């Protein structure tokens, strides 16, 4: 085993150390049965929503495309099971507004067999063809942001990418789905990375993994090809190690300039599960119809990592995993950056990495005034001043927040809210501020 000298651990400045709670790390991925009804929102990714190519009443088979991409910044959808399209109508989404979704009634006899595939000759594909195949497979970033993977792997013209960074840090507490994917599908991960390197022209790839998952580091290094162009490296276990800027800094020592993308420093970054699905689906010529989701939290009866069909309503997933108690808080994603959902009819989508069921606190935490202790300043991985930003947000001085205190650089990791002794909902205030600034910019 790779012994890490404690003082030379790769990491970034500031950050926090929340309790890991990764009790599901030892639980192998298990498949969840089909829900009787799947809800497939047309916009499961950032960008333009997909355009349905089926009509209500039409029969579809597992793997069949049911919606096409609308332009470059868009992704198609595939049917997750054999069944009949029931409707295309407004359905609740995790973010709140109702969105157009395809509702699929699943046949009881539907099997696991994917019955719609066009395997290409993988070795003969050009970079452009790989990018097109990734779009046709409907793969969005599976770490949570759901940015279309093919757009991420197309560097802006004129930039040279020298390193592809694969994010296997999984710094969010509770979540272990990436960890299980690295342990159980290492060949898929490596094949995906090789395809991604061919697509973006990167000569080397580094997989960054927190050092609480050294078994995954070892597993991937064992499966990596002998030429040494792909290697897995351990980074310190610290939150938010898995954010783009922090992981790039930890692994390469490069800092992404304000307002720039990571390609500006010659780096592209992708999530490890995205790579695993690229490595599995592109050679098979299939579309993404399921993903690994961690179901955990103190109120879950059977926590674990489940292979869940996209479109499975949260209600079915929670019934299957079991949840105790009446009043609970359900979080989609990790506990730090995930969002509480208000409706159980919200489906699992491409970016859903975890479902956490927390017992509801009996009394809502009281918010006290800022005591200027500076804890938030000392943990902000971007070096911002969350205390000042919070006070400006309370006074609705959004323009000052943007121009003088760089609210646009905040990626909402939640470290400031986590350490605040006054329980000030800083990140929520920042989300509001960023939303209003975006509205003003659009107006």
């Amino acid at each position: 085993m790779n012994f890490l000298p404690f003082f030379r651990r790769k990491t970034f400045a500031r950050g926090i150390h929340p309790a890991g709670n990764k009790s599901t790390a030892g639980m192998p991925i298990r498949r969840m049965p089909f829900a009787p009804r799947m809800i497939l929102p047309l916009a499961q990714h950032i960008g333009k929503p997909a355009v349905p190519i089926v009509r209500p009443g039409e029969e579809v088979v597992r793997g069949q495309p049911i919606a096409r991409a609308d332009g470059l910044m868009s992704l198609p959808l595939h049917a997750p099971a054999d069944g009949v399209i029931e409707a295309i109508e407004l359905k609740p989404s995790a973010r709140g507004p109702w969105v157009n979704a395809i509702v699929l009634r699943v046949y009881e006899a539907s099997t696991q067999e994917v019955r719609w595939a066009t395997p290409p000759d993988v070795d003969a594909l050009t970079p452009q063809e790989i990018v097109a195949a990734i779009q046709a497979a409907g793969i969005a970033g599976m770490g949570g942001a759901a940015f279309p993977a093919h757009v991420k792997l197309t560097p802006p013209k004129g930039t040279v990418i020298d390193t592809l960074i694969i994010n296997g840090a999984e710094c969010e507490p509770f979540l272990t789905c990436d960890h299980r994917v690295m342990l159980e599908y290492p060949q898929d991960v490596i094949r995906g990375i090789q395809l991604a390197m061919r697509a973006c022209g990167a000569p080397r790839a580094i997989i960054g993994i927190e050092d609480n998952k050294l078994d995954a580091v070892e597993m991937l290094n064992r499966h990596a090809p002998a030429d040494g162009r792909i290697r897995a490296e351990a980074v310190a276990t610290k939150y938010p190690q898995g954010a783009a800027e922090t992981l790039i800094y930890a692994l390469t020592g490069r800092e992404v300039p304000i307002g720039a993308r990571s390609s500006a420093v010659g780096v592209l970054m992708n999530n490890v599960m995205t790579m695993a699905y690229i490595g599995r689906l592109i050679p098979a010529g299939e579309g993404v119809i399921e993903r690994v989701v961690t179901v955990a939290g103190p109120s879950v009866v059977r926590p674990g990592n489940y292979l869940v069909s996209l479109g499975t309503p949260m209600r079915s997933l929670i019934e299957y995993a079991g949840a105790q108690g009446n009043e609970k808080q359900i979080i989609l994603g990790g506990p730090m950056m995930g969002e509480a959902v208000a409706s159980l009819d919200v489906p699992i989508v491409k970016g859903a990495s975890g479902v956490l069921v927390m017992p509801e606190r009996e009394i809502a935490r009281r918010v006290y005034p800022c005591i200027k202790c500076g804890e938030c300043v000392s943990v902000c991985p971007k070096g911002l001043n969350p205390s000042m930003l919070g006070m400006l947000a309370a006074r609705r001085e959004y323009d000052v927040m943007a121009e003088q205190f760089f609210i646009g650089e905040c990626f909402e990791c939640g470290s400031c809210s986590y350490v605040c002794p006054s329980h000030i909902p800083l990140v929520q205030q920042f989300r509001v501020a960023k939303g209003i600034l975006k509205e003003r910019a659009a107006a």
Partner: protein
Amino acid sequence: MSEFWAGIILAGAFMAALGGALALFLALASRRLYVFEDPRIDAVENCLPHSNCGACGTAGCRNFAEQVVSGEIVPAKCSVNPPEMNAYIAGMLGVAMGEVEKQVARLACAGGHHVARMRAHYAGLQSCRGAAVVSGGGKDCAWGCLGLGDCEDVCDFDAIQMNGFGLPVVATDLCTACGDCVEACPKSLFSLQPIGHQLWMACKNQADGETAEAQCAVACTACGKCVADSPAGLMHMDGNLAVINYAHNSLTSIASIERCPTGAIVWLTDGQVTRGHAAKKIVRVTPLPLAV
């Protein structure tokens, strides 16, 4: 000793001479760089409310005064000033006061917590904008008023008060149509409407009729009766909602609302809300239990 005093006198004289020279420079500069400004602008500005609310469409009261003096805008455009004050400005400048129909902010939602159910408790930042970023805020109707009073907070004129059901009520006499509430509402429920628009659609729920009615007792169920009862061209259905075309406002009558089964479409007179005869009576006054 004398050397000491000589030093002080010399320093004093030097500073006085320097001060005099700079004062002369400033006096000349102010003469040379003088910009003539119409004194009437100051006079008009003094008659304005100094609220800088922007309801008139200018950048603020000073900008409004400049535009009034140059004749680009009529004094009546200031909706905050009482009409007598605008008449005084018009008289002072010798211009027509102009006529502007009074506008008020109106809320396109009637779903208080006694008629519209919640599907989750929200316990975070107590503001509508804050609630809206957490899964839409927990109200079953994703389009409806969250009731945490962002509009009440931003209103500079105390024209908005939250009522006992968690809905904002606009005092039409105090509202200046500045538009702050329009920007504040995360669900875009407020709009500025001329006071003559009496037929009002107080719902934005786009779900199908059955779902909408389960979410809120006063939701539009898209039955289309109001459209059928209105003169042709006045109303139409769009996205499970009835839409009023105010270009034909003169055709509106209270007949349009009479058969509305939920009372989603209403008739407004002087701040009084009239629901149709067929609208089901709302007797509940306490909040509805949480939907599961």
